[in-house]
């Protein structure tokens, strides 16, 4: 069966009808959109289709290959799960924004040319900002605005890159770009902002924890993964990405250890996980690209699951800071269980999904490090191993421990609503299913693979790594060294535009404003003087000529004064006899004629 609907439009247009429906019909309709979208996806022909022309450009709206198809599958799956999760919220804005956002992500990954890619890329920003703003708190409004500004800037960088790229090559094809000229770097950094590269990342940790409960689940799935897709499509094997990825994998875990807001801890760990994918794309071998894509697939599920479990906690208790939580295993046992599944998956425990994908990237790095001249990759491998231990520490242990165990904060709440439990249950099932039967995932990866994650060596060494990380946690906690969670805020590189921006504003205001005032007063006085002069200048000139004329005619005294006043008044009021005006005009034309 073939189908011919653009996957993006199924979501974007389908979402627009949601506000017109009520009750059960609405819930069923919302769940149907991703299902219909998925069936449509299965029927779409491989290769390029759906051409459109825009001005001189021939656009390719749909381009399907193994890489885009894999992202298409997981985007539909997580959209379906997230929709079930948010059914109990009654906010139409959130629903429409969520579908628009998911549709934009699908449009981006199936775009066959850079222009279509850019249009959907920008739609992603619109959808995600709406998801942040639907929280309707002041913090969310401000964070949303900062998010919008950062992404608008990133979009402009990308657009400039695409325009330069087109002028240089005359092509809008979504094909590999080699870093070299300005346009290649502009596109690279434009994508990098959405990918949350170090120093460009704080939009993520700033805004995601401020979005709505369901919004954050949507957000965690699409923006960064679309950027990962774009890098895999346009910049595979770019060495710079290895170093960027290593930075992403390493630095956020330090922040995650001291962060109090548990959804922000997850936001930091999201960057950490995307770091593994970026390293894989940078290495660029088939195994590495497969690893990056497989890990993106799994991360969407387990990170979504973790955000869902924290969202459920927030929904029931109204709290999300570690200092306000604890002991919830008593009242929310199912949420607790699903959270642990997510934690085990992100930590890459055997039989859980992270185990079968993170090690692909690790193995690819290790294999490439044996190539002569690539020895430095050994250091990359060691940092990634450090990050793999660290992620268990902050996401695998910290999240479940501080929310569900630890010090009992005394919350006696109901278990999460049924729809939330079903959504979490589905994600948890998929995490274990993929972890146990990785062949299903491997079959949809961009390259055919015979990678075998379940070797004795891998299972044993990974278990050792994780158990001894846990041992460190336990001993540090029992020994009182583990940093107690504190009600505090940790500044990050967004300080540059949040405080630095204010400081720059104050500096400019203090130095430039006085200068401005001075310049203004000078300009004003000159202008006022000139205006005063020109107000009646022509009248004065006429008067000057006339007075001399009259003096020659021997008109003097009172009569001269009277004539002067009458002429001046007539000139200003413009009631000059028409004949005189005509005479002046004619003589002027005559003068011009005589001179030329």
């Amino acid at each position: 069966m073939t189908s011919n609907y653009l996957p993006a439009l199924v979501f974007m247009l389908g979402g627009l009808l949601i506000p017109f429906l009520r009750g059960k019909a609405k819930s069923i309709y919302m769940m149907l959109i991703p299902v219909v979208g998925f069936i449509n996806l299965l029927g779409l022909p491989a290769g390029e289709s759906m051409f459109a022309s825009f001005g001189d450009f021939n656009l390719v709206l749909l381009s399907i290959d193994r890489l885009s198809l894999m992202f298409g599958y997981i985007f539909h799956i997580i959209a379906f799960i997230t929709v079930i999760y948010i059914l109990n919220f009654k906010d139409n804005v959130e629903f429409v924004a969520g579908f628009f956002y998911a549709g934009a992500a699908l449009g981006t990954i199936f775009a066959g040319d850079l222009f279509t890619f850019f249009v959907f890329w920008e739609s992603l920003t619109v959808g995600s900002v709406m998801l942040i703003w639907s929280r309707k708190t002041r913090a969310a409004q401000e964070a949303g605005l900062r998010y919008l500004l950062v992404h608008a800037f990133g979009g402009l960088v990308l657009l400039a890159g695409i325009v330069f790229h087109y002028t240089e090559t005359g092509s809008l094809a979504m094909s590999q770009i080699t870093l070299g000229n300005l346009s290649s770097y502009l596109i690279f950094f434009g994508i990098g902002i959405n990918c949350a590269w170090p120093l460009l990342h704080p939009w993520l940790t700033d805004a995601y924890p401020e979005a709505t409960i369901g919004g954050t689940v949507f957000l965690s799935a699409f923006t960064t993964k679309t950027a990962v897709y774009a890098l895999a499509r346009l910049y595979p094997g770019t060495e710079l990405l290895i170093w960027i990825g290593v930075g992403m994998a390493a630095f956020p875990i330090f922040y995650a250890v001291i962060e109090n807001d548990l959804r922000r801890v997850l936001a930091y760990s999201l960057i950490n996980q995307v770091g593994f994918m970026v390293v894989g794309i940078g290495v660029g071998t088939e195994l590495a690209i497969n690893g990056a894509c497989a890990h993106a697939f799994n991360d969407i599920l387990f990170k979504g699951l973790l955000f869902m479990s924290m969202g459920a906690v927030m929904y029931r208790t109204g709290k999300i800071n570690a200092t306000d939580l604890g002991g919830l295993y008593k009242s929310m046992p199912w949420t607790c269980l699903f959270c642990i599944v997510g934690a085990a998956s992100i930590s890459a425990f055997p039989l859980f999904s992270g185990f079968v994908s993170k090690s692909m990237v690790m193995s690819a790095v290790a294999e490439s490090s044996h190539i002569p001249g690539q020895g430095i990759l050994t250091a990359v491998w060691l940092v990634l191993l450090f990050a793999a231990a660290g992620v268990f520490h902050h996401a695998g242990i910290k999240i479940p421990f501080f929310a569900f165990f630890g010090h009992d904060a005394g919350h006696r709440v109901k278990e999460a609503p049924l729809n939330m439990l079903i959504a979490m249950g589905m994600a948890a099932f998929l995490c274990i299913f993929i972890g146990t039967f990785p062949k299903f995932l491997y079959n949809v990866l961009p390259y055919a693979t015979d990678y075998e994650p379940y070797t004795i060596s891998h299972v044993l060494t990974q278990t050792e790594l994780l158990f001894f990380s846990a041992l460190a946690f336990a001993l540090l906690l029992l020994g009182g060294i583990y940093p107690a969670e504190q009600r505090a805020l940790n500044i990050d590189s967004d300080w540059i535009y949040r405080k630095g921006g204010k400081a720059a504003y104050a500096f400019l205001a203090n130095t430039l404003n006085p200068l401005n005032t001075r310049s203004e007063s000078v300009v004003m006085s000159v202008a006022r003087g000139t205006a005063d002069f020109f107000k009646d200048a022509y009248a004065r000139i006429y008067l000057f000529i006339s007075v001399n004329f009259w003096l020659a005619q021997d008109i003097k005294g009172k009569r001269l004064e009277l004539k002067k006043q009458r002429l001046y008044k007539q000139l200003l009021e413009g009631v000059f006899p028409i004949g005189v005006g005509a005479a002046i005009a004619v003589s002027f034309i005559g003068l011009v004629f005589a001179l030329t």
Partner: protein
Amino acid sequence: MEKKHMFDNPENVKKLLRIFFSSVVALLVIDVVYIILSEQHIIHRHVEYEWEKYWSFYSIYGFVACVVLVLISKYILRPLVKRKEDYYDK
């Protein structure tokens, strides 16, 4: 009175910790067995780096990594970046 839950009883916490510490020790023993078996070529072991063959390399690496992570976060990063919660509102 509220129902007693599993970890309200300190005995259960102790029991859990005991199980955990024993499994940690068990892993160290299994690693020895595994090294012997692979040295004797009874089990084929593929390693990328020589140090992966050292006894409990991964255990020590994981433990040290996490201790270093926590110490750096607590004693270096937090003093540098910690601010009051209303820092940006002022």
